[in-house]
């Protein structure tokens, strides 16, 4: 049986790629106006990126123990679905606005999470929506996004 791969090597490679990309990006910066004393705009980011590269090399070369199963449990399909819903919060917000999105999100994610009755979830989601409206809209006078559908309907 092949031994499990140590993810630290992949992590080190990713960090090194970030450092190299940062060094490469510094070559695209505008030139420093002549006559300015001291360090310019590129030296410090290059120095930090070089240190990052060196640290990535050390991480790759030293056989650091890989993260345990406890640190990185398998991501279930339900978890992926919740991640997708988190990502979907923004597009939904653009359509129906922040306040209506909140209870919908809380109930749907709560149901997917499991272990709590839908009535409890619905009540707490409603309470949360009202509390956020009171605190942020009424007290802090924050203008929360309304969403194009709500604006179109004239609310």
């Amino acid at each position, binding site marked *: 049986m092949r031994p499990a791969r140590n993810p630290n090597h992949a992590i080190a490679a990713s*960090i090194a790629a970030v450092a190299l990309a940062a060094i490469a990006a510094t070559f695209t910066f*505008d030139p420093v106006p002549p006559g300015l004393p001291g360090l310019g*705009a590129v030296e*410090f980011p290059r120095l930090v990126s070089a240190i990052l590269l060196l640290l990535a090399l050390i991480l790759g070369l030293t056989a650091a123990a890989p993260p345990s199963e406890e640190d990185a449990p398998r991501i279930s399909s339900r*978890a992926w679905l919740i991640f997708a819903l988190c990502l979907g*919060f923004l597009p939904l917000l653009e359509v129906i606005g922040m306040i209506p999105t909140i209870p919908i999100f809380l109930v749907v994610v*709560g149901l997917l*999470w499991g*272990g709590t009755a839908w009535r409890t979830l619905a009540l707490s989601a409603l309470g949360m929506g009202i509390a956020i409206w009171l605190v942020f809209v009424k007290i802090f006078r924050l203008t*929360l996004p309304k969403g194009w559908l709500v604006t179109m309907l004239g609310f």
Partner: protein
Amino acid sequence: MEGFLGGLAILIDPWVMFMVFLGTVLGIFVGALPGISGSTTIALMLPMTIAMGPIPAICFLGAIYCAANFGGSITAIMVNAPGDPSASATALEGYKMAEKGQAGLALGMSAVSSAIGGIFSIIVLIIAAPLLARAAYSFGPPEYFALAVFGLSMCAAIGGDSAVKNLIAAALGVLIATVGMDLTTGIERFAFGIDELADGIKFVPVLIGLFAVGEMLDQVVRRAEKAKIIAMDAARVPGMAEFRKCNRAIWIGSGIGTFIGALPALGATTAALIGYNETRRWSKHKEEFGKGSIEGVAGPEAANNAAVGGSMVPTLALGIPGSATTAIILAGLIVQGVRPGPHLFTEQPTLLYAVFASMLAANLFYLGLGLYMAKFFARISLVPPAILWPSVFVLSIIGAYGPDQSMGDVVIMLVAGVVGFLFRRTGFSPAPLIMGLVLGGKMEETLKQSLIIFGDDVGMFATRPIAMTLLCITAVGLLWPLIARFWRMR
């Protein structure tokens, strides 16, 4: 003394006092919630404090910091699930005491020793911070640069999988701090034509993303079950015999906590673990440890709360965060237009002493609340994760959107959340990244100023004894594993 009395006078203001009380209640509340730490809450609350003005805002955040450490011990004792990482050492003995039917006594001792440790460290803070600030008056840019490098090197010991990963996270934080316009040359860096990046990465969305959303995504994968709570009557004030038994543990914890807290980057969790070990080492009842020792509750609780005051010493006197949480508070001060450092003691002494006084008040508040309402706070851990974590996500969205009402900040917050989640899964700690982000700007600025002073000659650092000493300590600390290996080989 005049400044301190001025600070006390501010505390008499009902609005400030209310914010301290609210911060204390909120701190205990979130401290008792497994998974939500004081740093997560302070990051979440940061946007709401912007409109408050500097004094109520900092008093509010300071009170959360003080109380969250204590709140974590409630669920550590009652549920064996530390609400805050700094309470993990308390769970070792506290839960065993609860199983033996001594939950009330464990909670009582936790409240009292936490308050003693907290008050002790604030007294040290009141004395030491002005002295350190006075000493720091002779600091120039080279010394501040060396201090920032030293502070970042201490991140190696912050926690997580390995020292190298912590240093990588810190370096990433410094690199992120370079995004946006370079103040000395006016050149845009790493902005890639994106307006939201042109002014630099803002602290608030990154902090909320890394701590709150990162933790929420991690909890989605773990899907923790609802906690089971141990029955108890009420917390009770420990008697004279118990005090006598724990006297040494409380003072050991208070001393260690204050010292560890004052070191850059090391915070309450490290203090509590060392406090527990040292309490056990110096105990006359070693045989009780592991079976529910009351000293094993008193020592780490005094230590983790003493670390709070300790970590505020370098934060306020030098502008170098003493822990991840104080790095967030430092970001909060900067957002409020307050620049911590030695000049703060002459320019805004009232603000400083109001912070000290509010922290003292927070310790007294949670002592009372802890003794009389511990049973209520313990029930907080019963909030179903299916309600708690989605709510945290919603509050994070509003928290990131609120300050500038910008959806761009929400996107930055979500990206930071994914980074925080990946960090947790790959053995990185988000705390060094925050330290790097907060210190990065100061580091570059002071390095540039130093080189102008030195006429671009790096070797001139050797002519500055304080800077050189700090750089040497940093080098020895970072190379210590190699030095130790070489020593063993001889």
